[in-house]
């Protein structure tokens, strides 16, 4: 229960003034610019865009600066901002097969058309602190090699030629949008993917990890992981045709999973899918594992009671802004609630003590 109380304005103003001062830190150290955050903390920017569910690197960088590097606070700022924007429309589905890739690897095939492209990865680094970065220095230039700009087909498309992998149901239905209508259970796969792609990276990671450890095991291989830019195209009613309105960087992960077949389906591989804004590889892989685990009913698998198979558990707890809001509201004044509890405990104690005395 909340009761309107006055007071505290001066304290709040002083607290916010101090916050601004602390945000700036030691003024003898140069101030960070938004452009520096955008360019040099790009993976933090990507996470804020993915979970803020708004692709705009400058805004995400500003949010990170304002939030003093607290990424969930930054995501909160982005979510709040996006509610102020009019919705101009929806894009046609992006063509990830046409992606201009900076990274593309497959754990299932060594030699594949288009090859294995490592891209700017942390993989194979030694994870030793690099003290050269603490000193200003020259940046080495990345080597180049002759390249083709042709589109590279998906690995799953190659498997599909032999019928070895399940085909995704085609369709062009307008997908449900959880930012417009509250999520209702049971959900559909498009709605689940929207909820997971904007879900908390740590939560999705832990859910995916739980499936690997045996809680809803799905035996996933990374069939393909690709990172790169795709064009975003939208139908413009006044023109009568669609135009490109920009391009976004995406990470896409497709897993290939064991499936022994069912009464209606022959044994074949099945798929889990992850698609996330920005270079967000851990999240995209985790997303594809969680997506696959949630498909148990559709594929006629056993529900082992694993958390990752429970769509209510996964989808209702994946959003870090909802979680933060509910978690942190308990620090706000609950004076009247607590007064009632206090009265109750005092009364019960009086009764208990009186009862004890009477018994003696």
């Amino acid at each position, binding site marked *: 229960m909340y009761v309107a109380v006055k007071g505290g304005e001066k304290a709040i103003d002083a607290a916010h003034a101090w916050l601004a001062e602390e945000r700036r830190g030691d003024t003898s150290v140069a101030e960070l610019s938004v452009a520096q955050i955008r360019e040099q903390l790009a993976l933090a920017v990507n996470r804020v*865009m*993915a979970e803020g*569910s*708004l*692709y705009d690197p*400058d*805004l995400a960088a500003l949010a990170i600066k304002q939030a003093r590097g607290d990424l969930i606070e930054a995501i909160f700022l982005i979510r709040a901002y*996006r509610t102020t*924007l*009019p919705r*101009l*429309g*929806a*894009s*046609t*589905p*992006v063509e990830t*097969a046409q992606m201009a890739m*900076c*990274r593309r690897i497959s754990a299932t095939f060594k*030699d594949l058309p288009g*090859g*294995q*492209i490592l*891209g*700017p990865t942390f993989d194979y680094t030694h994870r030793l602190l690099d003290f050269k970065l603490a000193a200003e220095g020259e940046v080495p230039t990345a*080597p*180049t090699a002759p*390249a*083709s700009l042709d589109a590279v087909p*998906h690995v799953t*498309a190659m498997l599909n030629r032999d019928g070895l992998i399940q085909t*995704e*149901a*085609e*369709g*062009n239905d*307008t*997908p449900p*949008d*959880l930012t417009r209508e509250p999520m209702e259970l049971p959900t559909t*796969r*498009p*709605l689940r993917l*929207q909820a997971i*792609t904007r879900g908390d990276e740590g939560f999705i990671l832990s859910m995916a990890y739980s499936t690997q450890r045996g809680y809803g095991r799905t035996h996933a291989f990374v069939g393909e992981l690709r990172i790169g830019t795709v064009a*975003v195209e*939208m139908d*413009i009613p006044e023109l009568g045709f669609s*135009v*490109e*309105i*920009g*391009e*976004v960087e*995406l990470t*896409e992960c*497709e897993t290939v999973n064991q499936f022994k077949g069912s009464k209606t389906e022959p044994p074949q591989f099945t798929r889990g*899918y992850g*698609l996330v804004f920005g270079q967000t590889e851990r999240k995209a892989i985790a997303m594809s594992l969680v997506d696959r685990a949630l498909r148990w009913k559709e594929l006629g698998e056993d529900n082992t009671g694993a958390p990752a198979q429970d769509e209510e558990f996964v989808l209702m707890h994946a959003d870090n802004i909802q979680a933060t809001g509910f978690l942190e509201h308990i620090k706000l004044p609950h004076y009247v609630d607590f007064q009632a509890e206090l009265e109750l405990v005092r009364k019960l104690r009086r009764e208990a003590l009186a009862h004890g005395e009477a018994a003696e």
Partner: protein
Amino acid sequence: MNALSIDTAARKAWMGLLARTQPAHLAAFMPDLPDHAVLRGPEVGAVMVRGRVGGTGQPFNLGEMTVTRCSVRLADGAVGHAHVQGRDKAHALRAAVVDALMQTTEAEAVENRILAPLRTTETQARSLRATKAAATKVEFFTLVRGEDK
């Protein structure tokens, strides 16, 4: 292919280029704007970006992106539209003016003065990125196996 469809393809190409370009690049090639009336905007909004399940299946909502739109009419009546990525209103206004100019007798001059250099910049950036990626392509070689001895 008839003339109309060629025009549409060309128009789609320049509108896409204008949408993707950095606002500062466009401004550098276009410091002054011709006389024009703004019909709509510039207005900042969001577009829901969609993907497909498994890359090929049913559409789903991936998340929004910021987009600014603008429509203008030039003195000679040509109408231009723009939807550009980001929140830069001057970018959307310039893109709409270029779209209108490309429908006038100015088209060739605008193509040479503005669109061609923007296209070159974009092609070079894309090509540089692709060549850096190509340099990280793995060349596998098989080690000598024990039984080969």
